[in-house]
């Protein structure tokens, strides 16, 4: 079904980005425009998800050119869910950033760049065209380079350099993959590719499949391509790290899911390779996290670990596995954003995020402790948190496919995650502050009210997610069915309907 709403999650933030540049002299005007644009993006995304759930697939051909020739924007259930989650997180983190009043957040370039990032993320989820996916990635990454280095501090420049260079290498590989795909099939439209790729020889298909996993694996932080991630994310200001942690790697995972399920026939899907990579990603992520002393860096390693779980679910290539991943991604975005927002609050409270230097948060700011407890339990996967539902679904799918090795690895990693969360809890929330004392002594509300409000919103969303886990899981299951059998997607894009 056609809908004029489809391109709005890209167009609205981009247009607003231009407006915020024009109104660059007034910080207030910039903030009003940015908040308005992101709120309307949330509304549009919800409308799109409702439509997509009703009609399976909603699409729009840019400029009225039909599918293989023109650029198609497509929203199916997976894209819809990702859009709603990402736009909500972008809005909440913007509120947090406005409350933070740090150097970077007051920078005249912050709002425009942040909106471009929002447009890039939405575009990655909506596009039905491989080259457009490349452009969307570049839009998102270029914005993230700037956000990461906006402060121009030495550590930001150092880690930003690593981040930019590794992203550029991935982009170069992406263009290479595109050129080879175009040379062998004569199209870059995803639905059209899905019809033409089965005609290629199996070896060429395997090559493409692996090349695309490599390209998106770098963006997603998959083992052994994750090394840049814990290095660069922690140096950005709090809200920026939160949005990077919540969204950017997940866009990579989304691209892996989309390309693997849509483009490649079952016999050239890299199930075993993905399972091995997923397992190693989990192990490396959690072991890396255990060795860290800095809170943000520790949590960055956990991002890597979580990616492993998603890739494990995808690697099963069963309906149950893919549905579980869809559910898991949504809850991880919530949890990760939440944890990094709390880390930002702690950083602000003490002026450092070293676990060995902070302590006693339970007494000095009990609300931060509450906000940390909910996502931390989720990350470790203890019932009744949303993480438990996600991990249970994943493990259930793993047992169903009798992949015992990866299931046991996932269980052990969960246990280690719990250990690492208790380490944070004991160090930061109990314990005594050794050398750093709370900056704003006597203030027990945990920080500026907008920051606390935004963090509270993510916590509320996590709790709501547990309460409505049933309906969300059913939606994820329908999305999983779509992905396992993409004929509806292909017909909708190519059928011109």
């Amino acid at each position, binding site marked *: 079904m056609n809908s004029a709403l489809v391109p709005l999650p890209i167009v609205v933030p981009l247009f607003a980005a231009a407006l915020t540049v024009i109104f660059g002299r007034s910080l207030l005007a910039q903030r009003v425009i940015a908040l308005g644009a992101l709120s309307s993006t949330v509304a549009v995304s919800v409308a799109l998800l409702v439509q997509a759930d009703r009609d399976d697939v909603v699409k729009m051909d840019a400029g009225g050119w039909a599918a293989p020739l023109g650029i198609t924007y497509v929203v199916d259930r997976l894209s819809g869910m990702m859009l709603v989650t990402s736009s909500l997180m972008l809005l909440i983190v913007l509120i947090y950033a406005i409350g933070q009043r740090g150097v970077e957040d007051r920078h005249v370039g912050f709002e425009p760049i942040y909106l471009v990032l929002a447009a890039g993320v939405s575009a990655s989820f909506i596009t039905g065209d491989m*080259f457009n996916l490349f452009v969307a990635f570049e839009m998102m990454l*270029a914005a993230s380079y700037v956000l990461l280095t906006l402060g121009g501090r030495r550590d930001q420049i150092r880690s930003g*350099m*690593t981040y930019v*260079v590794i992203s*550029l290498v991935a982009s170069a590989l992406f263009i290479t993959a595109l050129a080879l795909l*175009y040379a062998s099939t004569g199209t870059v439209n995803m639905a059209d590719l899905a019809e033409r790729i089965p005609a290629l020889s199996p070896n060429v298909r395997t090559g493409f499949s692996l090349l695309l996993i490599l390209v998106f694996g770098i963006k997603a932080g998959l083992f052994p391509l994750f090394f840049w991630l814990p290095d660069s994310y922690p140096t950005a200001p709090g809200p920026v790290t939160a949005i990077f942690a919540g969204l950017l790697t997940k866009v990579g995972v989304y691209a892996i899911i989309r390309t693997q399920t849509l483009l490649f026939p079952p016999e050239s899907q890299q199930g075993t390779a993905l399972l091995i990579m997923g397992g190693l990603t989990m192990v490396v992520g959690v072991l890396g996290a255990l060795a860290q*002393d800095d809170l943000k860096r520790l949590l960055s390693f956990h991002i890597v670990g979580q990616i492993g779980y998603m890739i494990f679910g995808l690697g099963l290539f069963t309906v149950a596995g893919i549905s579980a991943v869809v559910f898991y991604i949504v809850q991880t975005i919530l949890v990760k954003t939440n944890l990094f927002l709390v880390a930002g609050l702690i950083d602000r409270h003490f002026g450092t995020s070293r676990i*060995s230097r902070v302590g006693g948060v339970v007494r000095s700011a009990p609300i931060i402790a509450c906000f940390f407890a909910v996502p931390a339990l989720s990350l470790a996967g203890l019932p009744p948190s949303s993480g438990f539902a996600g991990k249970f679904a994943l493990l259930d799918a793993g047992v169903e496919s009798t992949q015992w090795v990866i299931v046991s690895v996932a269980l052990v990693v969960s246990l280690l995650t719990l250990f690492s969360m208790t380490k944070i809890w004991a160090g930061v929330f109990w314990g005594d502050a050794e050398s750093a004392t709370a900056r704003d002594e006597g203030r027990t509300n945990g920080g500026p009210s907008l920051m606390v409000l935004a963090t509270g919103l993510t916590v509320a969303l996590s709790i709501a997610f547990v309460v409505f886990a049933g309906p969300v899981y059913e939606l994820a299951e329908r999305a999983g069915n779509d992905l396992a059998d993409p004929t509806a997607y292909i017909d909708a894009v190519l059928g011109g309907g």
Partner: protein
Amino acid sequence: MSVMLAFTAAVLFGLGTWLLLQRRLTRIIIGISLIGHGTNILLITSGGGGGIPPVIGKGDPADFSDPLPQALALTAIVITFGVTAFLLAMAYRSWQLTHDDVVADDLEDRLITAQQRVDSDVADVEAAEQGHPTDSAGDDER
């Protein structure tokens, strides 16, 4: 023609990769640009051989060269251009801060290495680091 282009792309990729692995930022940036050129040549080649300009009414559509890869390459060139400009700005900022264009080591990595040696006293290590914030010796493994 096509073999020549493929060879050129391969050479650009090879040189670019080699430069990318150096420790100097300027070399890394040149390496990135070379790889970018290599991918653009690959994109152009993916459209098949040359032909007459693809303008309707100029001739038989069967003789047209494929316009799509050219459009894609143009987009890719613009993006590479923008990002290279940003990289240069970052390299300049890095030079302003450190007066050197060598990639600096990661503090946290060195902290962890140091922690193995001096297991208990993190504070000493940090004090030592503040003395030499950029270690350009270049032998530390990352």
